[in-house]
């Protein structure tokens, strides 16, 4: 119930998310007005498999590894630059590496993003785009069997990344988009502090109380929250995209006690609309 309340507040109360969605919309409108009329638009749905891993040095050096389902949906429109927005999610089951029989973990990772990349270099059949990406909502939510207070673990944030897209036409049918994103800064919350299931800055500031669930987010520069993503998208014809995606993040709110998590996913996407 506490977790449900947390999610409810997280989704519906954070005004920052709404503001950023609005900001993304304004940015996209601004870019759109400058661009030429010929364009490409697609709407795709994605499914695939993922391998994931997790380690939180605040509590243990044991790795949690596993696999699961990757899914998502995106809208991409390209005129001169590329705008894209979408959601991605990975649901995986992870197990501890050094023991069995307990500690099985359901891990939910999800992003709701927007990016814009602008063409900076064009050469025959390839093109380089540079721009920015906002993970308007980046969630890591875990449920660990066998634990009590630390059974549920929530980390979420709004990430601002430098983002690039190298696009290359391989032949008449195939096109490659190789993407790389690197975190610049973030506003995030890590639900587990050094020794309690509450955010570390909340405790350090002396702001914790038992009156209500508090989910504050804190400015976090990239040296405290490293977040990298790569995505190789091979588009075939008008309808199909085959991708290899890797995301990792490493954060710390307590010195020398880093939390590292990531996943790789191989997916296939079908474009419901491609024009």
């Amino acid at each position, binding site marked *: 119930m506490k977790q449900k309340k947390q999610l409810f507040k997280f989704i519906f109360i954070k005004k920052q998310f709404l503001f950023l969605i609005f900001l993304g919309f304004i940015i996209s409108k601004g870019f759109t007005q400058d661009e030429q009329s010929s364009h490409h638009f697609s709407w795709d749905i994605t499914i695939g498999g993922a391998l994931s891993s997790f380690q939180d040095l605040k509590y243990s050096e*044991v790795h949690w590894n596993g696999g699961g389902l990757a899914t998502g949906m995106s809208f991409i429109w390209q005129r001169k630059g590329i705008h894209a927005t979408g959601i991605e999610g990975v649901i995986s089951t992870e197990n501890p590496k050094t023991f069995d029989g307990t*500690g099985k973990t359901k891990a939910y990772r999800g992003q709701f993003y927007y990016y814009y990349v602008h063409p900076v270099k064009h050469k025959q059949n390839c093109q380089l785009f540079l721009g920015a990406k906002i993970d308007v909502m980046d969630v890591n939510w875990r449920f660990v069997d066998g634990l009590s207070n630390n059974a549920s673990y929530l980390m979420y944030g709004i990430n601002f990344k430098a983002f690039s897209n190298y696009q290359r036409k391989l032949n008449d049918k195939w096109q490659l988009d190789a993407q790389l994103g690197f975190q610049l800064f973030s506003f995030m919350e890590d639900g587990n502090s050094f*020794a309690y299931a509450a955010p570390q800055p909340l405790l350090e500031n002396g702001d914790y109380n*038992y*009156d209500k669930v508090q989910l504050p987010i804190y400015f976090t520069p990239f040296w405290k929250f490293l977040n990298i993503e790569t995505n190789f998208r091979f588009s075939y014809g008008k309808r199909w995209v085959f991708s290899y995606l890797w995301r990792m993040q490493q954060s710390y709110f307590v010195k020398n006690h880093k939390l590292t998590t990531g996943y790789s996913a191989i997916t296939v996407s079908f474009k419901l609309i491609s024009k």
Partner: protein
Amino acid sequence: MPLQYLLNLFLNNNKMKNNIYIISSLLLLGLIFNSCEKIFMKPNPDTDNLSIYDEYWKLLDEKYAMWENPDKNLDKEAIHTYTRNLVNNDLSEDSLFGVFNYIILQLKDGHTYLDDEKTGKEALYDIEALDDINLDQRVVDSIYLKGDFRTIGSTNYLKYKLLENDQIGYIELRGFGAEYTDSEVDDVLTYFSNTKGIIFDIRENGGGNPFMAILFARHFADKEYFIGDEYFKTGPAPEDFSISKMYLKPASGVIYTNPIKILTNRLCFSATTSFIYNMVYIPYTSTIGRRTGGGSGSTADGFLANGWHWQMSTSEFIDKDGNHWDNGVDPDINVQLDTLDRSQDEIIERAIQEILSK
């Protein structure tokens, strides 16, 4: 040969050759990045006896919040030196567990324990053994509730009814595990609006969700009360604590301000202790029964590298008068239950007498 034909086709076509180089490079890059996050992780720990002991001791040393609690009188270094010398890699699993059990007994803290789900072994400080139970539920059911009571929420955890010709409200709550809302508590207190006082029977209430404990307490607060400080462990060094000031704020709904008698025993523990220490500064509240069980700290839990599950107190509450609550506190009025007399519950009877005599 078809294979040779295909290879020639690729290799003689410059554009295709170029593409193959690019795709191969990217696939190689992909393979390098595959589970690359593990490069950023520390290696998995060892699981031999000494490694497990050192892992557990490090957790206790860095996270346990009550090493300096004066009621516990702990000598950390002596415990470490003694127990570390008992451990070697030839020790059986049971013996290693026994060493941890010894450590846990020294802490005298019901929140701090170790268990092994595979074997069912548990190492814990048993607060039940510290006193008689001082509650006979059969007596409460047959003499006071008589099967005629009201409840709120989806469970029967909370029972309430009017006693003594509707002069006294009686609430029985044996756990703070269920979820309640302010409006449900409003319903109970509205039902008791014409009473002279309330008996809040939380004997054998082992705790649950501290947010629920506070939710109830707020309905008895006529104003804001500063109740004390919670010391949270925020880093590995012994002095790495943060302090959160704890206040009890009135609820926005019904507030009950007639006398409240809280019935306690040794099994009042954890969130129930939170409920009591939130209530004790309200002037029209008092406790009757036996010493409480403690469990005043918040807890964290996790797994050792061999799968044993640990839990420990990682914060400590100290009230505004400087009292530590983890080993329990005595009630305002000490009353022992006579278990041989099943015609009444002496603790409830004393509470009735206290309310009606005002």
